[in-house]
């Protein structure tokens, strides 16, 4: 029984029994999908565990997992756990320095790497990692001539493991006994969160944390062994660990790994998952892709598309509000299903979706409504690594884009005097690895975790998020300034990829904008605007006009909310380069690092408060291979249209 299992290796053995011949993993490689049943996975994991043991892996050892989503990398996690070890998944795209810190801090003795690229990175760090003993790799290409003293192809490890198992008839029993001895409060994984500032922190999660969260979530959305997901988000991210490992183990559903980064969309289309998680960015990309393509379609098709999108929106809004949908609309919706909705869901690989979640960032109401109105059960959740993801989530019958839903099963929520959201749950992490003081900063003695987000519970008990608590600032005039809130509103326009708003301790708001090259580039192509580079396109007056319209629209919507009216954007500029995680401007999860940007582009921030005009700026950038260079450009600051707040009594901010 599942409730008797205290660890993932134990659940794996259970699944090998209860779901024996059901698929556990699929992996597209060499052009076709290879499938492993739960029984086969259990067998591979056991062989891998024995192989690891042959290499000297012992209880308490750490194994870093470095690479893109591949079944064998997931297996390595469970295999290590079955020996009493701890897995440390690492972002595969982190640069050498970041990786060195994490591997050193976690004191990993083993590394499970995907391929030559990662092995090269690890080998280059070898001197700085005294604890590192062995490196394993999955993909042998290019590695044949490497020194294999401490480097091992996974196939060899598996073969050795099987041989060891054969030599020792009692081995299996010992292994199983070891698994049975794992306690639920033992450490399962260490996940390093990059955070918006400072060094990454190692979040310690126990089996109990992960399993209880997973079981609760599976129950909440009625997920079972018939479901399928596509694993495509970084393995080091808690979301992927929960969706592609913890929940899969608990429910018994199948996890499919795509072939290559370039084929994710195609592979999703082929698999058509039933359960899907994506940050708003992915939905944004889908939407942008659709809009760009439909612009190229024949006018009649374009009009049909927009017409039925409108129909769906009408019906969807009514349905979500619980109102009756008129018969004509229902008929039209049926027609739209045939002509638009189903084909589009089919194209996006969303046609079998039972539940889809978005989280991590606020999602645009337009976009959210768009997918929902097409019949995709898209919901929001609010979560953190420290909570094993789930804090709040939308129940199927009460989805509202303005909120992030009700507390997940087993989660308690409270809002502090300062408006900060705090939670308590079985999923609450065991602490930051080797950093008790940082743990204490965030977790109270009675087990409440400070999220650092500002928000409030509405009258239905749904949580609404405004911004990071520390980011919610004040204008000198006293008005509330929630930069993220404004940035999100800006980013809901397809032409705007990123926005950074400033206004704390200032008398008005300003914004730096990053245009979306795909969307604006497409516009340029259709309108005969010629450009040679991102920089040139960003500086184009017509592009400025477009952005100015969007800023004005945001100002209008801000003006409508008395709490926010004062924080309208008075001036903006379009940055001459794309914000980039390699330059430290974004986190690895692609969130803007506002304070870093404020510092890096200080002259531009000053310019925004100086007045309109053209300013020179030069910035250092890091190329993919690690070299650095200078990008310089002229950036124009423009005035934006300001809207007078609606007439009425003095607007008083309520939330703060």
């Amino acid at each position, binding site marked *: 029984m599942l409730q008797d299992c205290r660890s993932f290796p134990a659940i794996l053995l259970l699944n090998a029994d209860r779901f024996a011949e059901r698929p556990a993993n699929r992996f597209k490689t060499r052009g076709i999908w*290879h499938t492993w049943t739960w029984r086969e996975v259990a067998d591979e994991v056991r062989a891998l565990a024995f192989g690891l043991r042959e290499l000297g892996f012992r209880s308490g050892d750490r194994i870093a997992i470095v690479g893109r989503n591949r079944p064998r990398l997931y297996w390595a996690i469970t295999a290590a756990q079955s020996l009493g070890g701890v897995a440390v998944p690492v972002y595969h795209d982190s640069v050498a320095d970041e990786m060195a810190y994490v591997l050193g801090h976690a004191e990993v003795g083993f590394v499970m790497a995907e391929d030559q690229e990662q092995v090269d990175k690890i080998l280059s760090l070898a001197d700085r990692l005294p604890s590192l003993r062995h490196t394993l790799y999955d993909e042998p290409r290019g590695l044949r001539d490497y020194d294999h003293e401490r480097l091992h192809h996974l196939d060899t490890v598996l073969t050795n493991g099987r041989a060891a198992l054969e030599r020792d008839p009692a081995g299996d029993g010992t292994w199983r006994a070891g698994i049975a001895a794992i306690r639920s409060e033992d450490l399962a994984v260490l996940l390093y969160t990059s955070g918006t500032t400072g060094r990454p922190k190692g979040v310690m999660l126990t089996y109990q944390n992960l399993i209880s969260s997973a079981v609760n979530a599976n129950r909440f959305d009625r997920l079972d062994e018939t479901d399928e997901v596509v694993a495509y988000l970084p393995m080091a991210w808690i979301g992927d660990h929960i969706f592609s490992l913890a929940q899969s183990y608990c429910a018994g559903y199948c996890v499919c790994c795509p072939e290559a980064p370039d084929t994710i969309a195609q592979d999703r289309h082929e698999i058509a998952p039933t359960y899907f998680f994506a940050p708003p960015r992915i939905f944004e990309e889908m939407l942008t892709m659709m809009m760009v393509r*439909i612009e*190229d*379609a024949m006018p009649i098709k374009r009009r049909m598309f927009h017409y039925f999108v409108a129909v769906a929106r009408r019906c969807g809004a009514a349905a979500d509000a619980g109102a009756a949908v008129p018969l004509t609309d229902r008929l039209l919706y049926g027609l739209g299903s045939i002509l638009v909705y189903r*084909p589009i869901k*089919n194209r996006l690989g969303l046609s079998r979706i039972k539940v889809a979640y978005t989280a991590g960032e606020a999602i645009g109401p337009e976009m959210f409504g768009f997918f929902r109105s097409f019949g995709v059960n898209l919901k929001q959740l609010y979560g953190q690594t420290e909570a094993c993801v789930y804090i709040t989530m939308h129940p199927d019958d009460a989805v509202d884009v303005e909120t992030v839903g009700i507390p997940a099963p087993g989660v308690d929520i409270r809002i502090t005097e300062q408006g900060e959201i705090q939670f308590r749950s079985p999923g609450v992490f065991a602490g930051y690895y080797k950093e008790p003081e940082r743990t204490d900063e965030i977790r109270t003695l009675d087990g409440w975790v400070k999220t650092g987000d500002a928000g409030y519970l509405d009258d239905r008990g749904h949580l609404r998020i405004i911004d990071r608590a520390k980011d919610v600032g004040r204008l000198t005039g006293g008005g509330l300034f929630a930069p993220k809130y404004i940035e999100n509103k800006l980013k809901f326009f397809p032409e705007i990829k990123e926005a950074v708003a400033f206004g704390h301790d200032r008398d008005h708001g300003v914004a730096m904008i990053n245009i979306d090259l795909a969307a604006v580039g497409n516009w340029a192509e259709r309108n005969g605007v010629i450009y040679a580079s991102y920089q040139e396109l960003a500086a184009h007056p017509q592009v400025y006009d477009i952005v100015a319209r969007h800023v004005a629209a945001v100002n209008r919507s801000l003006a409508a909310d008395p709490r926010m009216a004062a924080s309208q954007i008075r001036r903006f500029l379009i940055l001459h380069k794309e914000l980039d995680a390699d330059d430290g401007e974004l986190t690895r999860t692609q969130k803007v690092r506002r304070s870093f940007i404020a510092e890096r582009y200080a002259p531009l921030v000053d310019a925004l408060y100086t007045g309109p005009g053209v300013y020179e700026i030069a910035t250092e950038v890091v190329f993919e291979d690690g070299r650095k260079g200078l990008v310089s450009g002229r950036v124009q600051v423009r005035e934006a249209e300001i809207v007078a707040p609606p007439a009425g009594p003095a607007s008083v901010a309520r939330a703060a």
Partner: protein
Amino acid sequence: MLYHEAGQYKTTYAQDMALLPIAQERWSLAGLLVVAFVGVPSMAFLGIPPFDSDYVFSAILLPFLILSLAALGLNVLVGYCGQISLGSGAFMAVGAYAAYNTAVRLPELPILVALLSGGVAAAAVGVAFGLPSLRIKGLYLAVATLAAQFFFDWLFLRVKWFTNYAPSGSVTAPPIDVLGFRLDASVERYLLVLTIVVLFAFGVKNLVRGAIGRQWMAIRDMDLAAEIIGIRPVYAKLTAFAVSSFIIGIAGALWAFAHLGSWEPLTFSIDRSFHLLFMVIIGGLGSILGAFLGTAFILLVPIVLSRLPAALGTPLSTSTISHLETAVFGVLIIVFLIAEPLGLARLWSLAKEKLRLWPFPH
């Protein structure tokens, strides 16, 4: 739009390289085959219009199937291997006369063997006239195949042995017996021809998606590069000639035996060659489906042309109509070469792709 492919994934290469990898297409084809093999004969049997009349079988379905087969054969050569041929009428004639002579001179052999001998003879002749393709290309080859056309026109007209010394030169095929059954009714002959055509269509599809098909297409797309990777032009071209002429020969034999019954020496004239070429171009070079679409189209044009003027109240003389028909063919060829060089099959696959991508254009 009709293609809901999401969720169809391949777990083996055999699935991935299947004839029709998309489930919806497999079902459509199966449906079509059931209609052709079961539906149509049953309707004929039950007397449901339009299949109650012999005319539909003898004047529409049989010619359609047989000419489709010939076009299929020609497409192997022109569409897949890129070698032009203006002599397909002659290869049909070779097939017809070889089958006739086998049947008449060795009456103890089953008639299917006679039909087969038509194919074999045509294949041999095809290889012989394909030999120049090893030295010459493109336009020169067109002339070589034209030579075949004129030579065989003359041969069957003047050398009386081939027509078994029939005084008028006109010959009559013996009746068709298959496994003891005599196929008299046109619906029976339809079933025989349909079976043969379907078998050949699948066979050719297998060839063109296999190693030999890739060799043909490599020669077609860039013969020098093909040679660089070790493809022997001799083998690739001659197999294309052999397979193509074999099929055309079978089609010729069927045309004579199953469709005409008795025929004159100049039945398989250069006009037939041109018609087949038009079918292939309009239908679509390098497409199995194209052979069928092109044939249907070329057969429909005269029917429409002969009925349209009367329907519009301005009846025209037969000679005017026949000239008009020729002119329309000529214009169509030019229009297709300009607007859609890959023919109706290309339009079809574009439509299919549009449906798969629907509602987006790409």
